[in-house]
């Protein structure tokens, strides 16, 4: 009973997402359009330089990495940082913190509740686009297993990073600058436009230490082709960065909640 409450939190978020079916469909369409743009872009690039592979990856491989990374990234919407910021700014925190649950776990399970339906729709539509534009991917059992482990961890990491950013609202009220940095970091180093495998070696070596590739790029990369050493590296990075993000979120919440200053009613 004590922990089943969190499953109910996830469940109501699933229900709520399903009420936004037109919005879900719209976002899925956006993902499909992006996949078409990327297919066109990378096909033209490879043709221009007369290459069939770059760093061992062909156009189909890149497109499928982007199919996965884009769908995973879109599934966390609406983003946790903005939700927590709104709670702090609007004062609805008055309701959300005085209930018999852990505030952080409440948002954690809310996030996973949102991810469920979003992911199904996004991956379905993006995969359809991938199949149409570059054909079926070749996913082995090992790559599927590794990809799923990394995917679960990448959602946990994304949640706690976004949560920590949202909790900064206890001090700054407006966290949009931090959110912007975070999303741009994901965009550039998170393999959402350019897979890390295509980065120049020096830049890639630096980028691999950042939390962003450990998010949605890591499962996307492993799903497309299994690499044992890379799997271990990504898992290590995920565990390390997730630990840091959890500690930050817990610290910020504990400090923040003591300093809540709600104006007026």
């Amino acid at each position, binding site marked *: 009973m004590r922990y089943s409450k969190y499953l109910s939190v996830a469940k109501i978020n699933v229900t709520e997402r399903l009420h936004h079916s037109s919005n879900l469909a719209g976002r899925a369409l956006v993902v499909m359009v992006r996949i078409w743009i990327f297919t066109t872009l990378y096909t033209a690039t490879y043709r221009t330089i007369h290459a069939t592979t770059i760093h061992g990856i062909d156009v189909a491989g890149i497109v499928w990495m982007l199919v996965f990374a884009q769908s995973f990234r879109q599934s966390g919407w609406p983003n946790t940082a903005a939700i927590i910021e709104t709670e702090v700014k609007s004062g609805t925190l*008055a309701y959300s913190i005085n209930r018999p649950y852990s505030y952080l776990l409440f948002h954690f399970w809310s996030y996973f509740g949102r991810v469920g339906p979003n992911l199904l729709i996004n991956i379905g539509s993006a995969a359809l686009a991938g199949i149409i534009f570059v054909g079926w991917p070749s996913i082995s059992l090992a790559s599927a297993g590794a990809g799923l482990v990394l995917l679960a961890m990448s959602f946990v990491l994304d949640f706690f990073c976004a949560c920590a950013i949202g909790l900064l609202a206890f001090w700054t009220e407006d966290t949009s600058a931090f959110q912007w940095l975070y999303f741009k970091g994901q965009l550039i180093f998170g393999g959402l436009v350019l897979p890390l495998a295509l980065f120049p070696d020096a830049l890639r070596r630096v980028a691999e230490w950042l939390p962003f590739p450990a998010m949605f790029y890591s499962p996307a990369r492993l799903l497309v082709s299994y690499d044992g050493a890379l799997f271990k590296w990504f898992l290590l990075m995920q565990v390390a960065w997730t630990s840091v993000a959890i500690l930050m979120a817990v610290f910020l919440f504990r400090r923040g909640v003591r300093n809540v200053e709600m104006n007026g*009613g």
Partner: protein
Amino acid sequence: MNARIIEVRDLRKRFRAKQKQAGLRGSFTALVRPEFREIEAVSGISFDVNPGERIAFIGPNGAGKSTTIKMLTGILTPTSGSIRCAGYDPSRERKKLAHSIGTVFGQKSQLWYHLPAVDTYELFAKIYEIPRVQYRERLGYLVEAFEIAPFLATPVRKLSLGERMRCEIVASLLHRPSILFLDEPTIGLDVVAKLGIREVIRELNEREGVTIFLTSHDAGDIESLAERTMVVNHGRLMFDGATEAFRAQFISTKTVELHLEEDTHAFACRVGTVTQKSKHSITIELAADAKSEAIEELLSYTVEHFTVRDINIFEPPMEEIIRRMYAQVPKWHTTNDRSVDTTPEPIPLIS
């Protein structure tokens, strides 16, 4: 065992508010050299509440009412002083306290906006760990008492404000709290919705002994719901006593606003004092203690001699009541031993 359900001693809350001068220059200055002003929202309040009491905690905007409620419910941490609420220290034992209290903030919603209220109730049943059978029984009772059955399955966004507020209160009562904190529960509601909510809160208090701690700007809420009134202003407790005594002492007038079809220059009723007059509207102030007869006479006269477009009857606003309290400082008294600071001033800080 302590009989008191709430004990508050010398409660204080100070905030730091960033200051900025007007204009672009002010913005740059604030960026380089930020200035803060310390605001004391609550300045040493002490009171006790017995189980089952119905209390109105009132005061003008910025008086410290909501800040006090938020400290009582564990949302804000006091700067100093102590609180025991249902046996717990709210700021340290917030999760335990949550099982014993219900909160309704009239200007905020706890219901899932796009889902029917019943979905939120199902979630709250799990969150508060209410056994299934008890939840069903409780929900059945509350649905009937608050008459929300017709719109239980309607998404919250489609409900009127009155319907939504009834659903909000039900959400706060599912876990059988021993104290219900209501912060402006009737704000923005029409007369009928207000009456309905007052009636059901009162019934709940009588039937289940739930302690009601209410803040409101509506003198009607206070008169019909609370047996005890505490008035707070500038963070200090100014009055703590029976609502009847408060009403007799400070709610001394009612205002009647008449909108007429004809010109008001022929209006010659001698009841009350005309405070405002325009071509088709007239405002009359009546003594509250003679209200029923006076209003009856005034309305009879008006209906007999004029075609009435609209009639409004107002209680004096809270700001006006507080102003009168200050004006009557020497006459202040409390009807029991709970009281308080009878110092007419100072008003050192604005919250």
